[in-house]
């Protein structure tokens, strides 16, 4: 007789051990849905959580469900906050989370935050609450000063990573670095590139010298080039280096000194920094070029000939960020030399200039799409494009996963035919079946959205600006893009109809941002009242909402799903449209 295996009698610790091999959040969530006992076991052994919108759930709920978490990642403000579209004071405060976790997760080791407001008080609380704290990553955050950093440096005995990527730090003193005690030797990654003021260089040198595990070091602009060689000699094991200002008086011995220091760094894979480059010093990094897989020259005002010389030596390059000084000719050279290239970002050197200042056109990108078979991620700023070019790129690179094109002037048509760029982007979504992220620009009608809704089935994030003709456009996207998680729209003629008709879709997405569109206050209220699991927030700085007719369009609208209900920290210019709030408005 066959004995049926009873899952409930399977030893819990065996299950837990099996689960420990499952890291992905999606898989973990799936596990927790199998049955009650798996749910219980899984929730006790989940060690890492990711909350893509800090207002989608409350810290208390998270701690209640997952009692023993070691690593937390939170995101706050909507993406368009990067471009100053979200007013100061909007929110994204992390303090309530830290406060709750100080008691809920005493063993917390890692905190990663993106676009959140972090105060010195918060940093001090982190520093004293988590005895085994190891990793702090603050990406595009703000609200703290060097005093907060000093608290972290002084108290986190086992700190491994302090990464301040592009955050805004208030400079009150350069001495904070000296607060790392002499006993701190555990540092693996230090990124202070965004810190404006000078840090105490001797403290930095000593810190680097006593950190044998240091692999990532990103200096700020204030660290002069002549100090770099000494630092490199103390840390030849570095794999990622961000230089400070890359300029110095030209002295031949300085150049050879620096080149020698670089030669010693045999494991260097990625470089960044390069502010204020003096091209004569570029040859110093030639010794490491062939090993580089990632190069960020997006702050470097180097002209095309020097760039060509540089990238031609980086045959193993997988990721390049560069200014448009590289021009079409430089991209041609890139396409010829760097066959492993996966990601290319070209930023504008003069984004507000009326006339082009460099010879960078669609040809450059077409070239790279032809020459680099692994190219899958593109961010490209330029001033003209054509449907033909887009179709060519789409055909060359069906493996494209992230495609962001920014034609600098809004509503620019195909420069050859003066037609909208619908066909071109249509080809992108039709051919690139794995496309996860797309940003549109140029002249676009509702047709492009029809294409997107039809073909872009794996699309997760879409950014739209100055595009479309009617609600049809929005409707196509909301009804067609099954995997859509984040949609951000600005300055498009999308109004109430499509939004209301696709209300249910919004619960399957993380968030929707619409600014300078045609959504009426009335529609927002309707949406907010009918959809209790959505937070429908109207952002309007023009004064009290009831001073205008309900049919008037709102300035900005941010809708996100949440199980935590309306948030408590909305400033005066943000209103939640649910039932109770509606009473307050009238």
């Amino acid at each position: 007789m066959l004995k049926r295996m009873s899952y409930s009698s399977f030893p819990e610790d065996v299950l837990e051990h099996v689960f420990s091999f499952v890291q992905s959040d999606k898989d973990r969530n799936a596990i927790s849905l199998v049955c009650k006992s798996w749910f219980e076991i899984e929730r006790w052994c989940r060690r890492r959580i990711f909350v893509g919108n800090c207002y989608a759930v409350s810290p208390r709920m998270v701690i209640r469900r997952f009692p023993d978490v070691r690593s937390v990642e939170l995101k706050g403000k909507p993406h368009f906050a990067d471009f100053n579209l979200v007013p100061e004071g909007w929110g994204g405060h992390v303090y309530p989370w830290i406060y709750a976790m100080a008691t809920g997760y005493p063993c917390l080791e890692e905190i990663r935050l993106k676009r959140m407001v972090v105060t010195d008080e918060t940093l001090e609380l982190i520093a004293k609450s988590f005895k085994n704290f190891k990793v702090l990553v603050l990406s595009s955050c703000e609200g703290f000063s060097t005093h907060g950093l000093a608290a972290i440096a002084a108290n986190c005995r086992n700190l491994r990573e302090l990464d301040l990527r592009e955050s805004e730090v208030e400079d009150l003193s350069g001495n904070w670095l000296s607060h790392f005690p002499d006993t701190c030797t555990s540092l693996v990654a230090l990124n202070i590139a965004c810190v404006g003021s000078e840090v105490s260089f001797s403290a930095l040198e000593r810190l680097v010298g006593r950190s044998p595990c240091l692999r990532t070091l990103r200096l700020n602009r204030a660290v002069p080039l002549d100090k770099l060689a000494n630092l490199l000699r103390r840390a030849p094991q570095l794999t990622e280096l961000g230089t400070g200002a890359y300029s110095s008086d030209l002295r031949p011995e300085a150049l050879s000194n620096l080149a020698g220091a670089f030669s010693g760094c045999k494991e260097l894979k990625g470089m960044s920094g390069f502010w204020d480059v003096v091209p004569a010093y570029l040859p110093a990094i030639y010794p490491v070029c062939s090993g580089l897989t990632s190069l960020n020259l997006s702050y470097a005002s180097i002209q095309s000939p020097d760039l060509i010389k540089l990238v031609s030596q980086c045959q193993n390059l997988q990721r390049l960020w560069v200014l448009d000084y590289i021009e079409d000719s430089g991209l041609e050279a890139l396409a010829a030399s760097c066959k492993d290239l996966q990601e290319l970002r070209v930023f504008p050197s003069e984004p507000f200039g009326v006339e082009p200042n460099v010879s960078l056109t669609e040809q450059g990108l077409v070239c790279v799409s032809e020459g680099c078979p692994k190219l899958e991620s593109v961010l490209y700023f330029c001033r003209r494009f054509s449907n033909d070019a887009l179709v060519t790129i789409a055909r060359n690179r069906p493996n494209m996963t992230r495609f962001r094109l920014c034609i600098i002037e809004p509503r620019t048509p195909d420069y050859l035919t003066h037609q909208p760029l619908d066909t071109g982007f249509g080809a992108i979504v039709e051919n690139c079946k794995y496309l996860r992220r797309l940003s549109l620009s140029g002249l676009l009608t509702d047709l492009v959205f029809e294409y997107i809704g039809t073909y872009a089935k794996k699309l997760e994030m879409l950014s739209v600006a100055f595009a479309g003709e009617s609600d049809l456009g929005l409707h196509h996207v909301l009804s067609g893009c099954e995997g859509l998680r984040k949609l951000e729209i600005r300055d498009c003629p999308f109004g109430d109809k499509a939004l209301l008709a696709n209300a249910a879709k919004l619960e399957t997405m993380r968030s929707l941002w619409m600014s300078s569109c045609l959504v009426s206050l009335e529609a927002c209220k309707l949406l907010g009242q009918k959809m209790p699991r959505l937070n429908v927030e109207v952002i309007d700085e023009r004064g009290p909402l009831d001073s205008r007719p309900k049919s008037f369009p709102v300035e900005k609208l941010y809708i996100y799903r949440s199980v935590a209900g309306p948030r408590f920290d909305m400033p005066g210019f943000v209103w939640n449209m649910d039932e109770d709030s509606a009473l307050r408005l009238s």
Partner: protein
Amino acid sequence: MSPPLLGVGEEGPPNNISLLASSSSIDSVCQNNPELKERNYMGLSDCSSEDSSVVTNVSNENKTSLNLKATELRLGLPGSQSPERNPDICLLSSAKLDEKPLFPLHPTNDSHYQLQKNNKRVFSDAMDGFSEGKYLSNSELLSPRPAPNLGLKSGSVLENLGAQPAKTKEPATQKATQERPHAANETRSNQNGSANNTSSAPATKAQVVGWPPIRSFRKNSLATTSKNNDEVDGKAAPGALFVKVSMDGAPYLRKVDLKNYSKYQELSSALEKMFSCFTIGQYGSHGGLGREILSESKLKDLLHGSEFVLTYEDKDGDWMLVGDVPWEMFIDTCKRMRIMKSSDAIGLAPRAMEKCKNRN
């Protein structure tokens, strides 16, 4: 709880777009997992696969209780006529013979929506029907044109609501400024011009907030770089120059782009408008100001009268009164600003004078 169907007509299927929208997206999810049914035991949804199961349940329940009266709010604009032609119903009903559905109710097959010519005709017909006079004619107001313009601004929309779609106008910057007190901060003619636009050529490029989409960190870095390079030429560096402005008593601070202004007067009025919402609060929102937006002149009185002064922190870390130095010098040296009570600012004036003397 009423179902998440908004503006639904009385007729039965297949006229419920929102249902279809949800079920089409849910169906495809379910198609991938024909055997497995997701259940949410604990009633706690997290931001993941559980949600789709919940939504499916909701939409399944609601399929049986479809007969909603069209009592939903009409979303026609003020002044729109013909009450019998409810645009919401018209939108959804395929039973009305003379109305064409705006949106395709079913894709012609499961997986792909056919982009056939006949379908397109439906759309354009429906579009024409709608632009007759119901709504803002999106196609007219925002017809795609190669010429650059300021992009859609709510200010211009406000101007045109209720009227028949007029000839397309450029959203006038001035009107936009009146309607939106912060427009001065956001959209304006770039009076300094770009680096390339040095002559008195008429083409001043209006700067739109947040466009092109470049992060502040990068913009500021570029600005500093080009300033270093241009110092010899004396050209103004392009790009934005955001500084924080705080106000005593206000719960949060604001940011302004100093490049948007060419003199103190402009900065001052922009700040007054920006911080008016705080001053309203102090003034008492229940009084006569309750329903009206505080007028500019009243606010000026409040600010200029006695209560507040505008100060800034310069590169040396000193707090100075705004207005003492030439505008160009001010932009160069201002790190951030603070609107402080006059009583607190008394000590500043002598220092400012001294500093000026030392400089000269």
